[in-house]
């Protein structure tokens, strides 16, 4: 469609303004991260990243984050594939009601469940374990994953299943050999989204592991902020370190982020 050049200019101005608005905080923190610390000479201080990494213990906290994310992503995706497969390709009594029960999970706020989770898991001695941080997040992600994959599996042609049946394949083999391979894009999107949610999660990690040894990257950064408010350069470098994995992932897998967050939200 054609638009007048005046309008086109206006459009670029508006887009430019908002792009700048989105970027300025990010650029500010990047610029601060390489700025001199108190009392240092002006110039580009890339060593801030090294120092922040060591002082802030980000090796450890990001390691914890990776472990938690690995547990949550694999478990949540595996469980969601199974459940989504049943909801998406099988007819059974109570499927609608059960599905709505899963949908409910999309609305339950973490803030509401975290109190009993802490006290009940404490009673059974599970706080301060990877399980305590991962399980509540798996539960949330399973609700979304089931919903997401049900839609994906439903859209597959029935003939695929029928062909598999003629080959004599059982449900599990059909899932692994036919259904899952045909759904790789949807699965990738799910992996990306769950990974992002888990990496960025704050409240659950804060409450479920008060002992401090299993601090994830966001918590590590929060503590770092408490200690280095005055050393803004170092603090910003730490913040960049924590944000970087997600930003890099976003730049490479943009399509999946955008598609997941859009379709997941719309349907």
């Amino acid at each position, binding site marked *: 469609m054609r638009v007048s050049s005046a309008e086109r200019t206006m459009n670029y101005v508006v887009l430019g303004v908002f792009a700048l608005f989105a970027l300025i905080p990010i650029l500010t923190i990047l610029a601060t991260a390489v700025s001199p610390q108190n009392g240092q000479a002006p110039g580009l201080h890339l060593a801030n990243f090294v120092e922040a990494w060591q002082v802030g213990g980000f090796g450890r906290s990001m390691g914890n984050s990776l472990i938690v994310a690995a547990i949550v992503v694999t478990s949540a995706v595996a469980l969601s594939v199974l459940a989504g497969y049943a909801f998406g390709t099988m007819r059974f009594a109570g499927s609608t009601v059960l599905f709505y*029960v899963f949908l409910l999970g999309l609305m339950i706020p973490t803030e509401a469940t975290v109190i009993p989770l802490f006290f009940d898991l404490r009673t059974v001695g599970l*706080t301060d374990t990877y399980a305590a941080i991962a399980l509540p997040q798996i539960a949330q992600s399973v609700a979304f994953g089931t919903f997401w994959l049900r839609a994906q599996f439903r859209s597959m042609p029935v003939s695929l299943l029928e062909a598999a049946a003629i080959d004599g394949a059982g449900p599990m083999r059909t899932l692994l050999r036919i259904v899952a391979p045909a759904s790789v894009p949807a699965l990738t999107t799910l992996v990306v989204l769950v990974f992002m949610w888990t990496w960025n999660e704050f409240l659950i990690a804060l409450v479920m592991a008060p002992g401090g040894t299993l601090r994830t990257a966001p918590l590590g950064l929060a503590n770092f902020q*408490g200690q280095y*408010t*005055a050393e*803004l350069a170092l603090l910003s470098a730490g913040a960049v370190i924590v944000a970087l994995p997600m930003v890099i992932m976003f730049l490479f897998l943009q399509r999946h982020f955008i598609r997941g967050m859009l379709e997941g939200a719309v349907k």
Partner: protein
Amino acid sequence: MRRRTFLGSTAVAGGLGLLAACAPGSDSGSGGSDGGGSGPAAGDVETDPSAMGDVTLKVWDQEVRGAQNDAIEALIKAFQEDNPNITVERVSQSFDDLQQQTGLALSGNDVPDVLQVNNARGDMGEFVKAGQLTDLSGYAEAYGWEDRFSDSVLSKARYSADGVTFGEGSLWGLPQTGEVCGIYYSATKLETLGVEPPTSWDELFALVEAAQKAGEQPLVLGNLEQWPALHVFGPLQANFVPTDEITTLAMGNAGAEWTDDPNIQALTQLADWGSSGAFGDSPNGLAYDTAWADYTKGTGVLLIGGSWLGPDMEAVMGDDLRFMAPPAGADGKVATTGGTGLPFGIPAKAANADAAAAYIDYITSDTAMELIADNGGMPVLRTAELAPTSGVNKDIYEAFDAVSNDGVLLPYLDYATPSFADTAGAALQEVIGGQAEPAAAAETLQADYGEFTAEA
């Protein structure tokens, strides 16, 4: 039909869950029972670290500033060299983060072995009540801590086992450093302004006005966290209110009034400083650590605050940075907020209580005091003999000495009631920001204090 079966079965499952789960707390495995943690008797205490086997000791502290951090690291290194079977795993975090997370951490299962706990009723008092700390009386006897420390120092870490009485009862922690709130000043700035360091509060008020007229920001305060203003108000209050009364208010004992004239005058002075811009444009929007960093870069003439800031600021400002105790107050004596650093305690569920006590003993020993002083901190013991001969710490040690011996060290105001840190923090913020009249703020403070002392 099928649908109903499904609903029925979930209802049954849900109901079972409800039944199985008793009322909260009745089955919870947290800490002690109805309050009052316990501790071992002196005879049951193992004081020889080498007999404890291989131990990994988890230590939480908030000694994150330069000098304090150096001192603790040096101490841990020395402790581990002396006791090769003990490995110290240290988690350091800011005062705010430690305070935020201690409540949660102590109610969890994986508690640290050693933990720095604020003396206040809202912190140590509550943890004692919840049975989450170890009574150190037995260790104190075994290690002779009561000979090492004066009664007045130890009393700030004493609570009755039910957490109700503060100042006497069992011992729940040991401090390592000394603290005093006083006035930092830049020597060159005073010179430029043509004034001497104030010898009376009136001179100080005049100095503030003079600085303002000269286009300088007279006072530096970063009060985003709410508690920093208490370290300004504490010394200021002593200019108006008798020390006995302040102590009564701060310890949460009955018999004083926040709403009397002297207190309102003190609050009014704080409000005046706030409204006149003596603290700069927006002290309430400035972070504590950003404020002192700004001060070292040349913002402001005076900074009223804790002695712990000295070494870090001196690292940037050098000889220009000076420190003094506040001028004599209402009683004619020097009186200011201060005392000891946060005491180190042992959680009730600590896995290695004996090793924890050995650590606490070590970091409060005579040699430890020397190490603290060497690293630029101020030890709570042997302060006079370890005093440095130059630098801002010379001023700080002298001020601490003067206040402890010839004046009055006032307790921190947030000690008063379990909620007083929040109440006073918010009230002072509002006074400085002009959102609350001094009299109204006094009412707020009185309401909290009055309610608490009426119950007790």
